[in-house]
């Protein structure tokens, strides 16, 4: 019996959202009287793995194989199945990102375990195993009861901020016998986004719409993002016009994000755009049209020309940072 958590790292540094997932798992483990086992793959150091204990992991199962350094859904699924079997896992937690969404549904199908994808709350055990999730692209929530013996959850990144505590996890290696078919997907090329923060788990996001006029003005927005340490996003027409890469497109037919702060610049706030961002904790809208629908979904609004306002905001942030 244990709660199994799939963790992700970049060159041996565990991602913040994985710490969130461990902490989420630890909460469930406490309520169900069991413990958390994290599963780490590829090249990561012992110290970093032991330190996962600070977020509630008791044990880390580690599978090393150079081929696991890049994500591979067949092979990762194989490792997770081996770990689930070894631990007799009753609950499996992954992230609601491109990695978690490729692996956890496969585990769920293989183990005949009910899946809640995109959880935004802890399971309510008083009514069974009821988990709150996003539905209708952020326009509503559903409470879903998992009725199977084994339960699988993907957690929305940036739902619960990780709090560092005390503790050390023990590290055990997990040997997995891979077959040739586990690596039939072969990596040819990788292109990482220019920003240092992946959009899906960014806490702060600066986003631009057609009001930015063209790609040549994007540096204004990027300067602000850089000053804040924020990721950049855009509306659909912006990606459609190839002003920005399509993985930056948010909304009903793009990514769904829920950062702490979403700054919308020159975006009208169409319902399809709001669907992807209205889970944001605080929304700032900069728009020259007082009738722009986005203002009614915002916490703070600034009326005026983005070309003038955004550089001013960047300066203000710079000043603020110098004093704090």
């Amino acid at each position: 019996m244990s709660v199994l958590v799939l963790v992700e790292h970049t060159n041996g540094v565990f991602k913040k959202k994985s710490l969130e997932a461990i902490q989420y798992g630890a909460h469930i483990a406490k309520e169900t009287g069991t413990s958390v086992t994290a599963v780490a793959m590829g090249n990561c150091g012992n110290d970093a793995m032991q330190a996962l204990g600070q977020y509630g992991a008791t044990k880390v199962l580690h599978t090393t194989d150079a081929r696991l350094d890049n994500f591979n859904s067949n092979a990762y699924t194989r490792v997770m199945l081996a770990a689930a079997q070894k631990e007799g896992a009753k609950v499996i937690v992954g992230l609601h990102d491109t990695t978690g969404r490729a692996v956890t549904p496969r585990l769920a199908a293989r183990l005949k375990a009910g899946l809640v994808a995109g959880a935004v709350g802890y399971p309510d055990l008083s009514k069974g195993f009821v988990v709150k999730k996003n539905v209708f692209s952020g326009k509503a929530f559903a409470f879903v009861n998992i009725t199977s013996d084994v339960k699988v959850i993907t957690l929305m990144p940036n739902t619960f901020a990780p709090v560092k505590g005390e503790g050390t996890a023990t590290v055990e290696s997990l040997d997995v016998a891979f077959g040739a078919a586990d690596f039939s997907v072969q990596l040819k090329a990788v292109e990482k986004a220019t920003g240092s923060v992946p959009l899906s788990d960014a806490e702060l996001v600066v986003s631009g719409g057609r009001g930015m006029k063209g790609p040549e003005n994007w540096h204004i927005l990027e300067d602000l993002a850089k000053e804040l340490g924020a990721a950049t996003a855009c509306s659909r027409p912006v990606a459609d016009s190839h002003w920005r890469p399509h993985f930056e497109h948010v909304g009903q037919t793009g990514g769904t994000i829920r950062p702490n702060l979403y700054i919308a610049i020159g975006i009208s706030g169409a319902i399809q755009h709001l669907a992807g961002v209205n889970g944001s904790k605080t929304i700032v809208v900069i728009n020259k049209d007082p009738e722009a629908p986005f203002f009614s979904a915002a916490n703070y609004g600034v009326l005026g020309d983005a070309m003038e306002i955004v550089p001013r905001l960047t300066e203000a942030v710079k000043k603020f940072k110098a004093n704090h």
Partner: protein
Amino acid sequence: MKILVCICPVPDTTTKIAFSDNNTKFNAQGVTFILNPYDEWYALVRALELKEAGTATAVHLVTVGKADAEPVIRKALALGGDEAVRIDADSSEPYFVAAQIAEYAKGQGYDLVLCGKESIDYNNGSIGAMLAELLDMNYLGFAAKIDVAGNVFTVTREIDGGEETDTCPLPLVISCQKGVSEARIPNMRGIMAARTRPLKVVPPAGIEPLTTIVSYEMPPAKSGVKMIAADNMDELVALLHSEAKVI
């Protein structure tokens, strides 16, 4: 090469979502249903392109849904596709849907299964990966570009914070998103042809759902926007720090 495309109807993107029966049911009254955009614009259109290029010999469509799904399926057939199958069951939860499709597809010789990145109603994004497991196929999620040479697919897909390009042999399940193809509009010929294309209805297999939706909730309403003067960005920053506590 035989392709199976998974499609599902979803509420139109402009729908104001509402619930009934004490927030336990989605209120479909007055809601227009459309084909899930990822399924229509990307999965289905790419499948049709592969057939037009001579790579695929057949494109079949499958949906798990009740009779009210049929108008949307007809619309999909008007875009193209040789036949459609409706598995006559409520599309209640991801495992149930994936298992129904897998039971139906097993032994039918599909080499490639295309589905959307996610359905815009339940946003699970899980059916494709589940199908790969249940049908013992390879899986590539979040594809933005799909090319094929012989039996080997080259797929560019979204990963955490960027994109990567992979090659993979058949049989294969791919979930599709923006970039894979350009949306098409059905023409009169397609609409007429769709009438004669078969839409089979098959009974569901005996599969137990593993989750149930207990209730729904609307997000809390915003308390109203606070307007900040355009020349006072210091105030905005101060509020973001002390009031919103986000920086």
